[in-house]
Structure formats: structure tokens, C-alpha cells
């Protein structure tokens, strides 16, 4: 771990730092206080612009440009506690594998996701500004979840009876980090249809991260999210299937995969923030249908249309399935030609799952 001696400066108010700089006993003390002041005023200014830009609706903030296209990973271990960032740094960028599967899988999964966004969409990390990618593994005891908390990835080890460790599936890592991308771009509100679109886009890019890592064409991919996450005691293949929503598992403890594959089976519920993980099956299948209709690598055309739709300023945070579908059609036309095969494939896919693109 790198030494971090001056962290106290981070929580001192600027007028105290100025006092330290003016009255410093040694040049080193003065230098440290001044450099903290300089960094901090920059960040304060950026934060202010950021806050103002949210108010005015400006789409982007000033950029640092310092780390474009360079992944910077730090993996922490929580040693079964629940404190973040964790008890110790387990692996940093460029260092060798540790032999701890959770640490190394998190490191590789963050790398695969970064590479996907950079090489396919020319996106530099979650915020498109080269944000460092941090993760904490071995979070809690028998912890059955993984999540992106706005700053870092957090992975539980699973309980061992229903779930294995949550780093095991690269598409789950891609799914979680994509929630960060979605929050940065479209800010799809996390309930009802806009929430199901948020979930669906996280699944789409999660599975594309895995397909690209394995260099799979559409007909070779399994289109599953979380294959291998269940223990052998669970009756199920995965968490979800984009190809056949509703068929991923059927288990006495977990119940049956509740995902619909068509608008006629849309689930109206107050559970799960209005069924965000349930109704995402409908747009998930639409993406699968587009990708398989176009063939080849799903990320090249279908993935590009979905990514451009996420970045589309006409996509509102409260978008319905219909509005989202309409934007995918418009982006397909814009990218690949009006009334061309690609646009027709996108229209046909939404029609098959019962969503109007008119």
C-alpha cells in the first residue's frame, strides 16, 4: 500500500490550510499545505460547475483528460467486515495476480469492462473522464449481493448454499459497472418502466462485456446473466436469460424466474421498485432479437445502437419502453441508414415483444 501521510489535510477547511501555509515551520509543511490547497480549490471549482450544470441541464462537466484510455484499478479486501473501502489494499494496477480468486476476478472483470467501453464505444471509464475503478471484495459474511455504490464495486462472497462468490461472472461485473455508466448518461429513474430499462441496459452491456471478452458471435453466446453464480444445489442456470426471459431458474427456495418476454405479460407489482428486475425481460429480449437478426458480433451494431440511445439527449430519465424503443429506431436510422435493414430489424424486434415504436 502506498503511504498516505497527509490525509488530515483533506478534511481541513481552506482557511486553516492557508494559515498552515503562511505559518509553516518547515518548507515541506508549507509545500504540502499549498499543494493541498491547489488541488482542493480545483476540485471545489469542479464540484461547483458540476452542481450548476445539473441545474441548467448541461450534459457534461469540465474534463481532466489526464487518464483517457488508461485503466486504473485498486482492489480492496474487506476481510468479511462491512466497512468500506475495506481493511487493506489487495491488488493495484499492474501488479501480479494474488491467488485470491475474488481479488483476481474483480481485477480482471473491471479490466474487461473498461476495455469494452474504451475499445467499442471510445468511452473512458464509467464517467468518460478516466475515473479510477475501485472494488471491494470479501464484503461481509455470507453476503449475497454485488453492487455499484456510485464510487466503487462491492462484492460479497455468497452464502455458499444458494450463491457462490459474486466476482465469478464477468457479466455481473459488467452489469454493475454499467449502472454507473447509465447513471452518468441517461439517469433512468429506478422504478417501473424506466427502472426496467435501467436494468435491461445493465444486462445488455454486461453480456456484451462477456461476449467480447470471449470473442463470441451472436450464435455462440449463451445470452445468460450470472451463469455460475448459483451453487450446484440450486435448480437453475443463471439469474436471467436475454434469449428466453422467464427460463433461467426454477428452484424451491428462489422460486421461478419471473421475467416476461412480451408486453402482454408485463408484471404490475409494487415489489422490486415496480418490477425493475422482472419487466426488464421485455427490452432484454428485444435486444437479443436485434442482435441475432443482424448477426456477427452483437456489440458492433446492436450494442452501438443501444449505447447511442443511452447517450441520446432526447431519452428522458422517466422514459417508457415505447419512448426508448422509438429512440433505438431513430438511432439505427441515423447510424446505419434510414429504412435500411438495421432499422427494420430494430422495428421488428420491438414489434415481436409487443412494444410500439410508432
Amino acid at each position, binding site marked *: 500500500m502506498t503511504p498516505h501521510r497527509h490525509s488530515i489535510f483533506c478534511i481541513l477547511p481552506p482557511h486553516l490550510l492557508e494559515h498552515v501555509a503562511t505559518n509553516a515551520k518547515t518548507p515541506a509543511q508549507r509545500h504540502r499545505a499549498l499543494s493541498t490547497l491547489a488541488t482542493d480549490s480545483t476540485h471545489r471549482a469542479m464540484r461547483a460547475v458540476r452542481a450548476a450544470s445539473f441545474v441548467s441541464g448541461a450534459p457534461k462537466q469540465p474534463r481532466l483528460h489526464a487518464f483517457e484510455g488508461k485503466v486504473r484499478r485498486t482492489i480492496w479486501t474487506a476481510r468479511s467486515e*462491512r466497512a468500506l473501502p475495506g481493511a487493506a489494499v489487495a491488488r493495484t494496477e499492474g501488479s501480479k495476480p494474488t491467488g485470491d480468486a475474488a481479488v483476481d476476478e474483480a481485477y480482471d472483470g473491471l479490466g474487461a469492462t473498461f476495455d469494452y467501453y474504451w475499445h467499442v464505444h471510445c468511452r473512458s471509464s464509467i464517467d468518460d473522464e478516466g475515473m479510477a475503478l475501485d472494488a471491494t471484495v470479501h464484503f*461481509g*459474511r*455470507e453476503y*449475497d*449481493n*454485488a*453492487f*455499484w*455504490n*456510485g464510487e466503487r464495486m462491492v462484492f460479497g462472497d455468497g*452464502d455458499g*448454499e*444458494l450463491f457462490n462468490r*459474486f466476482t465469478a461472472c464477468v457479466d*455481473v461485473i459488467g*452489469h*454493475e459497472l454499467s*449502472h454507473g455508466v*447509465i*447513471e452518468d448518461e441517461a439517469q433512468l429513474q*429506478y*422504478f417501473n418502466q424506466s*427502472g426496467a430499462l*435501467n*436494468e435491461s441496459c*445493465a444486462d445488455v452491456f454486461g453480456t456484451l462485456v462477456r461476449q467480447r471478452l470471449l470473442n463470441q458471435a451472436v450464435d455462440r453466446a449463451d445470452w445468460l446473466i*450470472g451463469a455460475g453464480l448459483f451453487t450446484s*444445489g440450486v*435448480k437453475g442456470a443463471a*439469474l*436471467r436469460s436475454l434469449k428466453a426471459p422467464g427460463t433461467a431458474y426454477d*428452484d*424451491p*427456495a*428462489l*422460486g*421461478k424466474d*419471473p421475467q416476461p418476454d412480451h408486453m402482454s405479460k408485463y408484471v404490475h407489482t409494487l*415489489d*422490486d*421498485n415496480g*418490477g*425493475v*428486475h*422482472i419487466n426488464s425481460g421485455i427490452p432484454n429480449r428485444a435486444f437479443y432479437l436485434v442482435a441475432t437478426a443482424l448477426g456477427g458480433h452483437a456489440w458492433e451494431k446492436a450494442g452501438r445502437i443501444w449505447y447511442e440511445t443511452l447517450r441520446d439527449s432526447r431519452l428522458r430519465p422517466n422514459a417508457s419502453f415505447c419512448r426508448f424503443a422509438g429512440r433505438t429506431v431513430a438511432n439505427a436510422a441515423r447510424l446505419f441508414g434510414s429504412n435500411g435493414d438495421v432499422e427494420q430489424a430494430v422495428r421488428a424486434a420491438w414489434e415481436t415483444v409487443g412494444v410500439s415504436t410508432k
Partner: protein
Amino acid sequence: MRITLRTQGGIAHFPGLARGVTVDLDLLPAEAAAALADLVAKARLFDRDEPPAAPPAPDARTYELVVEDGERRRTLRVVEPLPPDLQDLVDRVGRLARSSRPVV
């Protein structure tokens, strides 16, 4: 005393976990029942306030805890991350439910 735990969301929504599991302290071995009663007391389930509503975070789990003791009954809905006293209780109930799961 009976405690019911319903879990929604997380990285997926599982109908079986959302349906909920109920642990009846009268039916537990004395030691396990005492440990659970202790966690319930520490978490002050009957007295504590409902946490304020916040915008939902992606893939955070929502827990619904129902505790019934004689005439008293309380339902509490909480979203991850949980305060430590509630987390300990949720973990314990979840573990008891898993250990009584039919072997398939």
C-alpha cells in the same frame, strides 16, 4: 415471537425470497431462540422509526421485517446498506431459513 423476512431485489428479484421466510422462536432450539431474541431486543424493532425514503440505488436489496409478539406486530421496510443491528438480525434470520431449506 415470530419474525418474517421478505427480500426484494439485489442483483435479481427472486420470488421465493420475496415470498418470505418465517422463523418462530418457540420452535427453535433454546440457544438459537435466545440468540435471536437478543438481536431483536438490540434492534428495538417495535420502537425504532421507519428510515426516511431515499431514491432507490440500483441492485440494493429491500428487506421487509415483520415481527409478531403476542398482540404486538410491527412491519419495517429497510433498504441496503443497513445499520449494523438490523444487518445482524437479517443475517441471522436468513441463515436460519437457509439451514432449514429442503435438500434438492
